[in-house]
């Protein structure tokens, strides 16, 4: 029903914009990762695999990548632990207050990421809110200094930030479960536990996968929370990239690491999409 001119008018402008500002930049990143940098700081446009060789042979890179993945995995796990039961509670037991509770989960998302990370810093610091409260209540005689500047602080902050993000897709998938399936299971004599594990949980798996992918990928690439709260032991892979693009001035190596991250992220997304399709209910 739509003419060629109409279809061209809606297709060409976004296509051009996306090509120039997304496709070309990713392509450039790809090219950069095979180049190198001279002692004087100029980019040498000769193609080789040196950057990738360095990534594989120098332990600091893959160790930091592994640590970042471990931090991201913990964030994903804890966001699930907080987000799933909350979504289940809202979807099945909140009654008329459902909308209100839903808004209450969304509202923290409107507080700037940076500000929330900063708030945790003021809570966890040596003379921060938590330590001074503990001393005030005589629960501790001296400040606990392991709270801030540690992977723990990074995991806690990122969990705080990504719990609502994992909640959303899980809640959406729970809301889509036909309620008569749940009732049928009950009428046929299943216990609530059986109904949950045999009916509700399997049908919510697409939401779980979407939420987990989101939390894992976004916390894997984070560099601000580690800078603000991580200290030396909380350094993540993106912090290395930031320094390579800044003071260390080795863009090609930084591009190679970014590209590895990009590849990892794409594989994860494709994998989770495939699983979601397998588990989707239709």
């Amino acid at each position, binding site marked *: 029903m739509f003419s060629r001119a109409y279809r061209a008018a809606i297709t060409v402008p976004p296509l051009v914009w996306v090509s120039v500002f997304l496709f070309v930049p990713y392509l450039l990143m790809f090219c950069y990762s095979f180049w190198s940098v001279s002692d004087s700081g100029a980019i040498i446009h000769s193609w080789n695999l040196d950057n990738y060789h360095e990534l594989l042979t120098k332990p600091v890179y893959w160790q930091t990548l592994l640590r970042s993945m471990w931090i991201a995995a913990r964030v994903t796990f804890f966001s699930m632990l907080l*987000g799933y039961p909350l979504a289940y509670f809202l979807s099945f*037991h909140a009654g008329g207050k459902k909308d209100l509770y839903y808004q209450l989960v969304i509202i923290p998302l409107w507080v700037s990421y940076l500000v929330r990370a900063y708030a945790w810093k003021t809570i966890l610091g040596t003379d921060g809110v938590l330590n001074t409260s503990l001393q005030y209540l005589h629960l501790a005689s001296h400040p606990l200094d392991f709270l801030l500047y540690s992977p723990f602080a990074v995991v806690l902050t990122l969990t705080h930030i990504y719990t609502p993000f994992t909640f959303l897709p899980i809640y959406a998938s729970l809301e889509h479960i036909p309620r008569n399936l749940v009732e049928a299971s009950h009428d046929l004599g299943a216990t609530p536990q059986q109904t949950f594990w045999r009916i509700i949980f399997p049908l919510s798996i697409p939401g779980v996968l979407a939420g987990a992918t989101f939390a894992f990928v976004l916390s894997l690439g984070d560099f601000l929370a580690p800078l603000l709260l991580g200290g030396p032991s909380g350094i993540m892979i993106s912090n290395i990239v930031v320094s390579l693009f800044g003071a260390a001035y080795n863009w090609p190596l930084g591009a190679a690491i970014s590209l590895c991250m990009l590849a990892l992220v794409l594989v994860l997304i494709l994998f989770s999409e495939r699983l979601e399709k397998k588990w989707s209910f239709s």
Partner: protein
Amino acid sequence: MKATHNPRWLTFHALLVFAFLYLPIAVLVLYSFNGPGVGGFPPRDLTLNWYRILFNDAPIWDSVLNSLLVATVAMLIALLFGTPAALALDRAQFPGKALFRRLVLLPLILPGIITGLSLLMLFRIAKVNSSLVTIILGHGTALISVATTEVFAGLQKLNRAQEEASLDLGATYWQTFWRITVPNLKLSIIGAALLIFTLSMDEIAVSFFLIGRDNTLPLEIWGRLRRGITPEINAISTIIFMFSLIAIVVWYRLRTRAEATPESSI
């Protein structure tokens, strides 16, 4: 009839999660009134002094204006290209459509650092100096994904018969687009605009790499955090949080009012 049980721990767990989600926000707001500064328990010498200092702090307000400018233009760019992108994904067939869909939506899930750095490389090659313009281009590009998802979701609910009728009755595509398609998508477009605006006001990972001489608000805050913390940051965050709350309420009322009016009325 209740087909699922509601063990008490579930309610308790929900309470705990809400406490966890709101604790930092409560601390943030509370300590913006704390006389001696951030930290220390209990809060004491409650004062509006930090707000007074904030209102006389010119660099912060410059950065707020910069952020408002960036968010407005980025929102326009994202809508201008994201809305047709959603239409194209919905109703046009062209080679590379699958790749196009993936590319458009990628910044939604990609860590900001990758989008930021790849754009930095583009601007370096094109010899464009970093400034608010590069930040606007960065935000606009990254947030096209939001406009596209929102409008695409709206299109799935759109009744195509209206557009067909309009075309059959002799209206041009242009007229049909403005008189039928856009009004039907109004709610999705407004929702996308609000969301894009807020996300841009908040954005830091992409801006981090594209910043020139002028700071946006998050980058101004970031610069100050590196130097030490003052309740001024709590104060400005509290003010922005209040504005966000107002935006949510406005959006919520718009939506409930739109849902209350019957869909079929043209």
